[in-house]
């Protein structure tokens, strides 16, 4: 049943899938560290709090496997892990909503600020989703356009990226509002990603041949902002009482250092989407980048 042997260079669809794996891996790393730190802080009060740590580890392993795997088709175990990851994220979101609603006052700012963060489990969902999409994309013969539910995979992925950027930006917005935007840089993750989302919506709905130089550039900048965010959060921890000398307390209570690279992970997926669109213009021949 093997369709092709290992070649010098992987098939283009596999290359795009590789980018998706990297995006997914970035998100999984972010979730692994962030949920690890936050759930240690929560003392694993509920045994289910260990789930995102285990799932993100599995996702990371699958991403690694998918990355070195040069076969142009999907892999059953990897696919299953990514599907499980999506389900875990959904369950996590439900847990966090329950966590918010069971407190006095229910859905109010106090509980949104200080309960399990509403948007955080979605990051693991996205990680799994990007993995699933990678599996779908690579499972396409070299000369055909990858499709998801019959739609150009590049467009689907662009739309998913746009939504992911908006959702993650909303989460950063909520938590930066909690921090009263005390540092002007805190406005960056609530302005740059929505702009990127608008551009990706354009990519999802617009003419596939139209060449955009600005969209990939903006995605790269948004991804870079994710990395810079980690730097800002490291600085933020230093502003808590005792600074880094008191890291065992301040790292838990300060801004989450592993969280901002979620934007980088999504930006990588967005770049993969743009590469797919370039490779498979619906109204012309393929031009693999």
């Amino acid at each position, binding site marked *: 049943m093997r369709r092709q042997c290992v070649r010098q260079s992987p098939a283009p669809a596999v290359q795009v899938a590789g980018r998706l794996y990297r995006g997914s891996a970035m998100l999984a790393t972010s979730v692994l560290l962030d949920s690890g730190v936050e759930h240690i802080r929560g003392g694993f009060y509920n045994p289910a709090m260990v789930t995102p740590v285990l799932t993100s580890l599995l996702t990371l392993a699958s991403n690694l496997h998918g990355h070195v795997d040069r076969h142009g088709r999907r892999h059953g175990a990897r696919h299953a892990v990514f599907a499980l990851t999506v389900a875990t994220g959904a369950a996590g979101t439900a847990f966090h909503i329950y966590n918010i609603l069971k407190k006095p006052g229910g859905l109010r700012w106090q509980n949104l*600020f200080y309960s399990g963060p509403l948007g955080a489990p979605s990051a693991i969902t996205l990680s799994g989703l990007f993995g699933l999409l990678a599996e779908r994309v690579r499972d396409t013969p070299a000369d055909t356009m990858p499709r998801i539910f019959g739609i150009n995979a590049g467009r689907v992925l662009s739309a998913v990226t746009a939504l992911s950027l908006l959702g993650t930006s909303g989460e950063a917005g909520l938590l930066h509002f909690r921090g*009263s935007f005390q540092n002007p840089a805190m406005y960056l993750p609530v302005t740059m990603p929505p702009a990127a989302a608008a551009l990706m919506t354009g990519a999802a709905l617009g003419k596939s041949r139209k060449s955009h130089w600005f969209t990939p550039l903006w995605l790269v900048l948004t991804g870079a902002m994710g990395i810079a965010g980690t730097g800002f959060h490291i600085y933020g921890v230093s502003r808590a009482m005792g600074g880094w000398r008191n890291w065992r307390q301040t790292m838990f209570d300060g801004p989450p250092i592993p969280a901002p690279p979620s934007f980088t992970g999504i930006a990588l997926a967005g770049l993969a989407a743009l590469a797919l669109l370039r490779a498979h213009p619906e109204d012309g021949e393929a031009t693999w980048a």
Partner: protein
Amino acid sequence: MREYRLDDEVDFLIIGTGAGGGTLAGKLAEHGFSVIALDAGLYFRPLEDFASDETEQEKLYWLDRRVCDGADPLQMGGKNSGKAVGGSMVHFAMVSLRFRPEWFKSRSLLGYGADWPLDWREMWHYYRQAELALSISGPVSYPWGPKRPRYPYRAHEVNSAGRLLAKGAEALGMQWTETPLATVSAPRGKSPPCVYRGFCRFGCSTNAKQSTLNTWIPRAIAAGAEIRDLAMAGRIEVNDAGRATGVRFHRNGAWHFQRARNVVVSGYAIETPRLLLNSATPRHPHGLANSSGLVGKYLMTQSNQAVFGRMDDEVRWYKGPPSLTITEHWNYQDNKDFFGGYCWMAQGPLPIEWAFIQTGARGLWGEALRRDMMNYNHQVGLKMVGEVLPDTRNHVTLDDERDQYGLRIPRITFSWGENDKILIDHAIGQMTLSMQAIGAREIFAQREDANHLAGTARMGFSPETSVVNADCRSWDIANLWVCDGSVFPTTGGVNPSLTIQAIALRTADRIKAMAQHGEL
């Protein structure tokens, strides 16, 4: 810091650096006036000088000798005084609330007390200034009263004592919210965010608390004011033309005289009237600014009764600021059979204070006390801040006894009025219902407690019925001012510090305007 000589005639010599004097010093200096602010206490440094020790922190209170009498003698100390640069705000519980607008006209609108010569809309403007200056952390929207802007910083995470207040309030059909607090929930300048140590009614060694000490005083110094600590004012001198010329103060073991064009008394409701009375001259035999005879009169406190109980689950009420949630329901509800209002807040007394409550309110001692203290982590409570009506029988006068400076000490006379007692009973009843609604057991009331002070140099509309006018300027001596909580004609059912600051900010702006028109 700029330092003036004794014979420099500064524009404003302010006595006291608390919510009134400290704020005024900062704003007047920023308006370009030359300012010296005296304080009898020390200039503490938050990171080095504040130990997490209930007893050690008593150094922040004004514990000099006083005589307290009346049917319900006030207990002077941490809840109503401060002796440090920054005043009692150094150890205040950070609760920063606005008055209900009607309280500024409580005589005409609500039928009790006295009207203020201030308009609530103008105060709303200055409240906002004070909230911004202190970066108050408060709820996104406040459930009572006219719309106010969003607080500069977000509310803190509510601890379980605060959540239990919320649960009780919801059971009683009352609204609740996070208490607006002067401790930052995110970094601000040199202040790191609050770390929820719970040592809040003392000096904050995190420096998260925003008080006069780390907001207005540094601003005053940056604008050229001198803060002169360990300087006890003993007497305001007045010349034959009837104008104040300066202040005699005690520092470094000797008496000195500082010249000034204007003198502002900001010593709060005991020390302000005491200084005015101690400055009597043959021309002013009953003390300065006292032609109305009202200096020292209408002393008010606020009722601070509590209801405590025990939960089966751990509460650990010492975590975080003690008053994280509040209900002002009975401040805004007029369907009741007494005058005035009250709010209540969640509680978190530290162990020594809790032991005092156990011995005082319940009479526990010995083995019974020891056993009960073991339940500390399960205790929960609600404490009110209630309005006490102004009453001429409550006053500050001078005793013949003298203190370490040789000055006559104050005699503080206080008794609850009939209305006060009815209000307290009502509050205890309501708080008990709230405690029952959350399933607390062994509920008991702490009936004897009072806190903030007010009155004794009230502001008003005429020289016959008040000591100062709306601008905090004394009717009798044009260059003598009083700027602190003693100018309150009524005290409202909320903690007074934000209102004192708002008055100081308004006064500074009025002084600037008057100076421009040559009216000083």
